[in-house]
């Protein structure tokens, strides 16, 4: 088989000129190279984050240590993971990541309280109740909502949500909201993740076979029963996948919280106070154009690594759930 390629055992393309066949092979390698870019991206993310984060914890970066530099730990993991003050750029520096992890978690949980119930109810309405005409308006509107840049949501928080929604509510419950607050950040992140929960949950509900619904109706179930006791449980792994994705998105959300939630790293439960998320810390520190090799610069990568590992865990969980859902119905 000097002329045939692997995919052409019958040798139909034997008449094709040698140049065309050579071009065919070259193109395949170019395309393989393109595919290699995405693999290289993943590998590079891991390498860059670990390499520079090691420069934060140890005196030297990982590749320098591998090449024989000394391993001298300057920031202990105990301080990093259990310290309650975060100020790597302060004159008396502190390296406890907990306050900014706390900031990220409060935003994530707060946002989930908005996006999960509203997104699920929207999905139920679109999939089980709405007429075709309502759906034809509702779904594109949600797509537009999903396509709005996150910086715009941050602006929306300080320009509308805080003065016209949070402040009036705050007066009733006795909280005074400043320009930036944990609640404002959580609110807009919740709103921006509604379309994600709604559309993925709706897909899951749509792929529940109609036989299941009809079976329940035949037994005398109401539409409410069918929606909550048949469709919801049957689509549950797909719905959970949408929640995980929304949570993952909220963890990594940057600009909306940088504008809306504030820049003070602290552990608090008061929704009217400012907090700082991991992502806010990163954009603030990069803004300062910290010089390469300084502890501020290396701290970006340490925080980035923690952030990346958190979202990676969420994404892997999401993959698992999606696979399970596919096995169930498709």
């Amino acid at each position, binding site marked *: 088989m000097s002329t045939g*390629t692997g995919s052409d055992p019958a040798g*139909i*393309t034997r008449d*094709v000129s040698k140049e*065309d066949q050579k*071009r*065919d092979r070259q193109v*395949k390698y170019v*395309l*393989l190279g*393109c*595919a290699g*870019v*995405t*693999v290289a*991206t*993943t590998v*590079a*993310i891991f390498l*860059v*984050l670990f390499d520079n984060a090691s420069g934060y914890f140890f005196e030297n970066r990982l590749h320098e240590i591998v090449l024989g530099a000394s391993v001298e730990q300057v920031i202990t993991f105990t301080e990093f993971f259990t310290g309650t003050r975060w100020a790597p750029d302060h004159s008396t520096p502190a390296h406890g990541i907990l306050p900014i992890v706390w900031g990220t978690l409060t935003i994530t949980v707060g946002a989930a309280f908005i996006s999960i119930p509203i997104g699920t*109810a*929207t999905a139920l*309405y*679109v999939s089980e*109740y*709405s007429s075709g005409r309502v759906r034809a308006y*509702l779904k594109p509107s949600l797509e*537009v*909502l999903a*396509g*709005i*840049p996150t*910086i*715009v*949501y941050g*602006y*929306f928080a300080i*320009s*509308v949500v805080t003065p016209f929604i949070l402040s009036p509510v705050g007066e009733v419950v006795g909280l005074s909201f400043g320009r930036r607050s944990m609640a404002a950040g959580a609110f807009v992140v919740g709103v921006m993740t509604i379309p994600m929960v709604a559309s993925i949950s709706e897909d899951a509900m749509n792929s529940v076979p109609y036989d299941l619904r009809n079976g329940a109706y035949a037994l005398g179930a*109401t539409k*409410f029963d069918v929606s909550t006791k048949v469709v919801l449980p049957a689509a549950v792994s797909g719905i959970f996948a949408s929640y995980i*994705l929304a949570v993952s*998105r909220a963890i*990594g*959300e940057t*600009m909306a919280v*940088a*504008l809306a939630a504030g820049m003070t790293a602290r552990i608090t439960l008061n929704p009217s106070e400012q907090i700082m998320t991991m*992502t806010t810390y*990163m*954009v603030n520190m*990069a*803004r300062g154009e910290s010089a390469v090799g300084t502890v501020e610069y290396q701290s970006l*990568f340490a925080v*980035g690594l923690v952030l990346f590992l958190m*979202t990676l865990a*969420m994404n*892997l969980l*999401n993959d698992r759930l999606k696979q399970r859902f596919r096995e169930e119905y498709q």
Partner: protein
Amino acid sequence: MTVEESENETILDRGVSYEDVRGRLFLAVCVAASFFGIAMLALLLWDVIATTYSAIFEFGVNPRDFLTQTSSRNVEKAGFYSAIVGSLWLMVIVSVIAFFVGVGTAVYLEEYAPDNRWTRLFEANLANLAGVPSVVYGLLVLGVVVNGAGIGPILLAGAVALALLIVPIIIVSSIEALRAVPDSVRQGSAAAGATKWQTIRNVVLPAAMPGIMTGTILALARAIGETAPLIMVGALFITTRTPGPFDRFGAMPTEIYTWAAQPERQFIAMAGFGILVLLVVLFSMQGLAVYVRRRYEVEFGE
């Protein structure tokens, strides 16, 4: 109440039963939830337009000056022009890099890749890349391109970050477009004596191109609104010069961020004006994507 009576009630006069109330209440909650998102969207758009109005009439921002002046710390001299040029350059470079890499990868996966463990691992990797926060892409480029390769915080570095961010999106939508081309078309081309690449270039890609273009335009619209990766590579830069590919730069979203974070109300109003410009660009791109899909999509009858 006996069973018979209750049956009569529901079947004959449809009186209000507990189940009726519960069902209607539930529907009302679902409808309210569905319109919450739309209400927020309406509120957001209304606010952007109202702020632009107040920027022009309350603060006296001349729209022509706004669109022709460059970035400045002085609120009277600050304009959006350099940011618009920065975003246009980003769009050009990002579309070249991301289109080539994204479509190339999709063609490889769909037309060449064997169905084995490595390919499945590759696809899982792709799904995870799509979930990596955008700020991490900025960090990657900061470490590898800006400081590692030492090209500095220039526009090209920002373009690389945005391109890497949207490549997974373009790959997924291109794969879908390629899958929609039936195998009979490929076999017909092969039977006519074309090589695999000739088939792809002359038959498969033209047929899939509307879908690929739609996906690419939507991905570009996503890239153009991204702020965090640009800030990570150092785009918060105030300059009176309009940037080229090898200059320090700002773009529309980073300029909006700078203005929105200022204490002066006029800057905040200008941020609203900037958002209006950004949204007009985004909605035009999304409209164009829908138009391309409707106008050029090839239907294959089975």
